């Protein structure tokens, strides 16, 4: 294990973390502010990627595709909120889980009907298609650095909106005590809709950004959603800061675990045993981390104030 390899793997972990943050940010806001469990959040991420593919096919320009996909993701998010989710805020969590799970099934099959079952492709925009030579024989694509940069920018922007603006204040107040905010004359329903649409758009943005490096296929949001839930449980529900730090932690632990667990076990096991045990432990690491956090700090590492 060389130092450069460790640095590269850290960078990879950071990139996965930033990606998870983009998805988890919307999820934690919706969960924190509205107390609403939205399993269909991963669907927004998938739609973002598919919309980008379609708009790229129409315009041939990644920038236009990104903007159009974001607008479409926002509109779809608002539409689903009005049609389905709005009727579920008062219901208990089980009803929400059932209904949003239904939305997942519905949209996954819908995507297959519209775009087909075969995976789709979105090329990296030409301007960012280069790569940096980090270690001998390995190029680090500039696009991955773009993902990290855009995630950090979004994090900074969110921090500004949530802590420095009036709407951010309302969101924080809503996360603390929605009934009281409503009693003070804020239209909580509209606040919810704004938060929801924004969260959907963030997930769509994550989908657009990863489409060039991942396979765009039906159900691509489902596995990401589980990781996003792990992130918000570790970070603390309703907390943007928690989602950010939780996402980076999960990204780093997962990536470094996958990279070095086998080598680590090889220090005291023989090679074939290490190859068996290493990946098994690596795939458990983030869940072990979550269990540990739940044991020591049940509200998460950085809980939203007042919860």
């Amino acid at each position: 294990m060389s130092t450069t390899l460790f640095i590269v793997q850290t960078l990879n972990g950071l990139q996965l973390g930033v990606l998870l943050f983009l998805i988890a940010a919307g999820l934690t806001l919706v969960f924190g502010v509205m107390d609403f469990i939205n399993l269909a959040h991963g669907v927004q991420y998938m739609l973002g990627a598919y919309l980008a593919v379609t708009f790229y096919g129409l315009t041939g320009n990644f920038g236009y595709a990104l903007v159009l996909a974001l607008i479409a993701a926002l509109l779809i998010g608002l539409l689903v909120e009005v049609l389905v989710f709005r009727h579920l805020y008062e219901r208990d969590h089980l009803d929400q889980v059932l209904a949003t799970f239904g939305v997942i099934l519905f949209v996954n099959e819908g995507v297959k009907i519209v775009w087909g079952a075969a995976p789709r492709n979105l090329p990296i925009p030409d301007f960012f298609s280069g790569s940096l030579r980090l270690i001998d024989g390995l190029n680090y694509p500039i696009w991955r650095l773009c993902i990290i940069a855009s995630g950090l920018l979004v994090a900074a922007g969110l921090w500004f909106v949530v802590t420095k603006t009036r709407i951010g204040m309302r969101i924080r107040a809503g996360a603390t005590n929605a009934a009281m905010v409503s009693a003070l004359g804020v239209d909580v329903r509209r606040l919810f809709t704004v938060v929801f649409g924004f969260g959907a758009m963030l997930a769509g943005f994550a989908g657009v950004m990863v489409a060039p490096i991942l396979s765009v296929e039906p159900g691509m949001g489902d596995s990401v959603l589980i990781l996003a839930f792990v992130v918000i449980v570790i970070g603390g529900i309703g907390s943007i800061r928690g989602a950010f730090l939780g996402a980076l932690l999960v990204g780093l632990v997962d990536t470094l675990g996958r990279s070095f667990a086998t080598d680590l076990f090889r220090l005291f096991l023989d090679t074939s045993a290490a190859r068996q045990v290493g990946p098994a432990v690596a795939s458990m690491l983030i869940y072990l981390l979550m269990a540990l956090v739940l044991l020591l700090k049940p509200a998460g590492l950085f809980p939203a104030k007042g919860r």
Partner: protein
Amino acid sequence: MRKFLATAGIAGAFALAAMGAQAQSVKVGVMLTLSGPAAVLGQHARDGFQLGIKHLGGKLGGLTADIIVVDDELKPDVGVQKVQALLERDKVDIVVGVIFSNVMMAIAKPVFDANTILVSPNAGPSPLAGRGCSPWFFSTAWQNDQNHEAMGKYAQDAGYKKVVLIAPNYQAGKDSMAGFKRHFKGEIVEEIFNQVNQLDFAAEIAKIASLKPDAVFAFEPGGMGVNFVKQYAQAGLAGKIPFLSAFTVDETTLPATQDAAVGLFAGSQWAPNLENPVSKKFVADYEKDYGKVPAMYAAQGYDAALLIDAAIKAAGGKVADKAALRDAFKRASFASIRGAPFKLNTNGFPIQDVYVVKAVKRADGKFATETVAKVFTGYTDAYAKDCPLK
């Protein structure tokens, strides 16, 4: 009285017509995975099978083909329920299916117990090839190890000394590595087990680059393969470290990976450029009808239709006598898309040539695989010797 006679006559005529129709048709239940992320494999196999029937004029062995297509949803329990419905309610003469081995292991016994012929257009788990082989089972695809073994043999022949293996951490991934190692005698520098349905392979790719092997062998089916191949190319490893694969680079994933996969190798018994009239006609009509390049799953589905056709002909068009039909399958002979007369081993799996194929961008801008070299001639699987059937 006259009216009564007329009515009776008409009724009789109908009854005769109905009996006639019954004797003139063969009922085939087709069970494939047609929903979920892996649906594209089932779609290729279904489209290939239906194109085969179209080429045969809507008939199988001269009998009108009555096809019932069902979706196993890639769930063994759903597969068992639906296959039982095919056997008991629809009373199918032949079952064609399935794509995935776990579903195959669940449905094989109910089909065999009903003394019904099972034609696999894809899945070929080792238990069905070895000790657990059945006289009711016939495959138009391969035993699961075939393509992994072909890649191992190719790596050995190419003189690669150090190879890194990567596969998902589940049974098929472990089988894949075992299959590769059966003919490869060089050094396995590392065996990387990634998580099933992993998205980002950056960590694994960095590790591969740091190990500097002579070649990489990957088994990453479906979306995992698309992710891995794209990221492999983006990391600049494509073209530098030879990429050998099985069920990773094919016409189901090429539309998504496109240029990233060009030049990568895979093992297969068939590729669209194979030079023989049956395959040429199949590829041309498939591309015309479905607007995409057929993958090997489509070719296997097409051959399933041809095999059933030849078997019913050999049985003299009698499908009611199941045992006679079964024996007819064994001696059925037809020109396969593989370019040679189709030959079955004692365990019901094909004896066939296996190639190393390479992804290319064709002159018309579409992506497809092309044969590079023949790795095995008259390949038989390693399990046939354990099969008690003669």
